[in-house]
């Protein structure tokens, strides 16, 4: 074939050069991690590390990395390193590098050299054009290393020379106060350059060509995924670290340590005392807690699930199995999708205007349950419908061929097969509604820092009456608190400072941690349920 690049089937021993490329990838990863650490202020950029300040270290590492990348590319071009590069690095890389160098050239010209609009425009065009040519025209080994490596070197030199130092600030000069400071700019630029150089050195490690592109993309995707997971982990870790001190205040074990509890008519004393989750807020408490809000949140979620799941699954059964597929089902689908994306405050307003006047004309737990149930309903319908559509028609055929009626088929074949999907939908929905603040604010919130005596007792609240409907539950019709609402009011209104809460900041973070734990426990229950049903369906 004309123009085809011949490459050997078995590569010669390239371990020496591969080690250099691999160390460049490793260095890029280290730089990326360092810049993330600096960005989240685990390390200040002026902190000395190994005798030099962070900025200098980052700059020096960037120069080393860039030099390694460029050296590898040039070495490959001159034939010192055995690689299989393509004739060009490709259009995507060329355009990306051109855009990048356009920005860099423009910024250097306008900010550092102080040229006017014409000046920086021309400089930016020239640097962008040169970068495009440098990427597109030479062979791939030069094209993908030179622009990336020289950018890293340039950035490193700028850091080392102190042009961007710790006290550097770039005032954008807008009407609003807007500026980039060094604490933000240096880590972000370093992270970006390390990603770019890491990609180039990963390509070099793969020997360019198809394998090199694969390795390059692999490194980018991997680093990206890792940093996302790191951010998630960071979020949870941050909340846990901040929340722990307030959480275990006054924790005590031992017989008779805890409060008296009555469960199903049996009164006993708990062997553990955990004030933060067993107390409310009161003037005479030694340590205040959020028990009413925890119990309120749990009952809220249970009520919403009990209300929405049967309704939602029933509706999904109807539109999937019984209703003729056509205009009607389409309208229902559009409506459910629309409802799911409706802002929660609108649901809250609906609850306030429609439910509250009809349920005792006051904010109540029941109104909150129903409002959140309405919020949950569309997601249950959507996911149940998807799960039922995914059940193979063969099962329905087989069941019909055995002479089993449609409803029995739905009940004993379709629903069990769809259950894991349905449970997934409920998990997602509960995750959303358990942390909702706006609807609760409007429909059920009472005191922002309720005392322990106001803990809602739904089971104990049922009482029989002589008049229809013969059963009554005043607890359901009482206003109560929930964790997201309590957190909101603790933070925005500063409520609680007057209520003998010793350390309000600790109290807030502990409340946030408890909210996180409650929501994650609902998740855990849901995931365990899904796992159980999945196990039952599969043959493992």
């Amino acid at each position, binding site marked *: 074939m004309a123009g085809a690049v011949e490459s050997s089937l078995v590569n010669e021993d390239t371990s020496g050069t591969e080690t250099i490329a691999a160390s460049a990838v490793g260095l890029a990863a280290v730089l990326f991690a360092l810049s993330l650490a600096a960005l989240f202020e685990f390390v200040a950029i002026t902190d000395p590390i190994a005798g030099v300040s962070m900025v200098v270290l980052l700059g020096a590492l960037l120069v080393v990395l860039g030099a390694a990348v460029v050296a590898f590319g040039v070495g490959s071009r001159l034939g010192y390193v055995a690689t299989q590069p393509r004739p060009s690095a490709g259009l995507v890389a060329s355009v990306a590098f051109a855009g990048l160098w356009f920005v860099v050239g423009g910024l250097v010209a306008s900010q550092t050299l102080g040229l006017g609009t014409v000046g920086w425009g021309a400089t930016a065009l020239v640097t962008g054009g040169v970068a495009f040519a440098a990427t597109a025209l030479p062979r791939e080994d030069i094209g993908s290393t030179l622009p990336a490596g020289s950018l890293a070197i340039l950035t490193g030199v700028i850091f080392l020379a102190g042009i961007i130092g710790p006290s550097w600030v770039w005032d954008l000069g807008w009407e609003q106060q807007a500026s980039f400071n060094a604490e933000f700019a240096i880590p972000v630029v370093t992270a970006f350059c390390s990603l770019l150089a890491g990609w180039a050195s990963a390509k070099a490690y793969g020997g360019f060509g198809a394998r090199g592109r694969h390795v390059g993309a692999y490194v980018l995707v991997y680093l990206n995924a890792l940093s996302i997971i790191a951010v998630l982990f960071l979020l949870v870790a941050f909340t846990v670290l901040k929340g722990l001190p307030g959480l275990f205040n006054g924790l005590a074990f031992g017989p008779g340590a805890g409060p008296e509890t009555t469960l199903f008519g049996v009164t006993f004393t708990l062997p553990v005392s955990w004030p933060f989750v067993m107390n409310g807020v009161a003037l005479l408490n030694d340590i205040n807690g959020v028990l009413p809000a925890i119990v309120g949140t749990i009952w809220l979620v249970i009520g919403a699930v009990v209300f929405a799941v049967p309704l939602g699954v029933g509706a999904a059964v109807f539109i999937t199995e019984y209703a003729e597929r056509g205009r009607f089902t389409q309208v229902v689908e559009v409506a459910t999708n629309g409802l799911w994306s409706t802002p929660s405050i609108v649901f809250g307003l609906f609850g306030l205007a429609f439910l509250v006047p009809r349920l005792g004309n006051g904010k109540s737990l029941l109104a909150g349950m129903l409002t959140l149930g309405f919020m949950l309903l569309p997601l249950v319908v959507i996911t149940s419908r998807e799960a039922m559509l995914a059940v193979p028609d063969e*099962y329905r055929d087989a069941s019909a*061929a*055995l*002479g089993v009626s449609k409803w029995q088929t739905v009940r004993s*074949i379709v629903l*069990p097969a769809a259950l894991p999907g349905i449970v997934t939908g409920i998990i997602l929905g509960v995750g959303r509604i358990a942390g909702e603040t706006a609807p609760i604010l409007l429909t059920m919130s009472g005191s922002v820092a309720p005392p322990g005596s106001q803990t809602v007792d739904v089971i104990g609240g049922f009482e029989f009456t002589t008049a229809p409907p013969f059963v009554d539950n005043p607890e359901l019709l009482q206003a109560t608190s929930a964790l997201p609402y309590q957190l909101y009011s603790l933070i925005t209104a500063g409520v609680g400072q007057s209520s003998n809460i010793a350390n309000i900041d600790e109290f807030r973070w502990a409340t946030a941690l408890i909210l996180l734990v409650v929501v994650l426990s609902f998740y855990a229950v849901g995931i365990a349920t899904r796992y159980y049903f999945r196990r039952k369906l599969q*043959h493992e």
Partner: protein
Amino acid sequence: MTETTQSTDAEQAAESTQTTGIDIEGGTGQPLEVTSGETREQTRDEWVEYEFDGAAKLAVEDLDVYYGDDHALKSVSMEIPENSVTALIGPSGCGKSTFLRCLNRMNDRIKAARIDGSVALEGEEIYQDGVNLVELRKRVGMVFQSPNPFPKSIRDNISYGPRKHGDLETGFLAGLLGRSDDDAVDDLVERSLRQAALWDEVQDRLDDNALGLSGGQQQRLCIARALATDPEVLLMDEPASALDPIATSKIEDLVHELAEDYTVVIVTHNMQQAARISDQTAVFLTGGELVEYGETEQVFEDPESQRVEDYISGKFG
């Protein structure tokens, strides 16, 4: 037997490569459709006459099926004898599966399908008002092309039909009321699995999920599941087409044994299989026409229709 086939003298037309021959009317009164490489000829009604002793288990008369505007099955009439194996063969899209699905009214489940004509099970018309589909499908069981066990245990798969029909009561309430038929379930499971030649392979793991079985075992499980409702007729839609040769030969042996107690109607793509296992063979050809029906040996060795001979010898289809 068939009155509709008002054929004139056969016109053995020359070989044609046209897809349709509008100039010749088929024996069904419909324009004859042929594929390339197929001889043009007119179907004669004596080709589909098949004499046998005893009463017909299933009698089909003038059966027409339309899918929307598509005329999928054209005026098919045939009688199927009791306790025998009837093979339906023909090229793809010739309507043999459609015909099979008419025998237990599974085509009712396809909204676009319209069915004209009559099918009688032991003299009782199944296409009339007031037919109990549950009872019909209990008496006419069906096995599908690809194995489709439910994602349940082997035991639950077998006992599913009888339990849903209310013939067997299991579960907590039945146990509480002392009406539990657990022993009967065990008997039924063992009997059905033995009939389907699967008992020895799965007797130790009846509570395992059926999806863990191999393809051949799954298909035999589906046969056992169909047998559990104690049917009289067993319809099989290419039951071995998704299986390897060893599993296929097991299914074939099984079909042979089942014919002693059941009336088996089997659709197959594999002509050797039809020749091996069936007592009589019906050949459907392009356009949804029943072209020839008779004793298997006669159909394969001395077919009356030139088109059937071409098909069997592999000239088309």
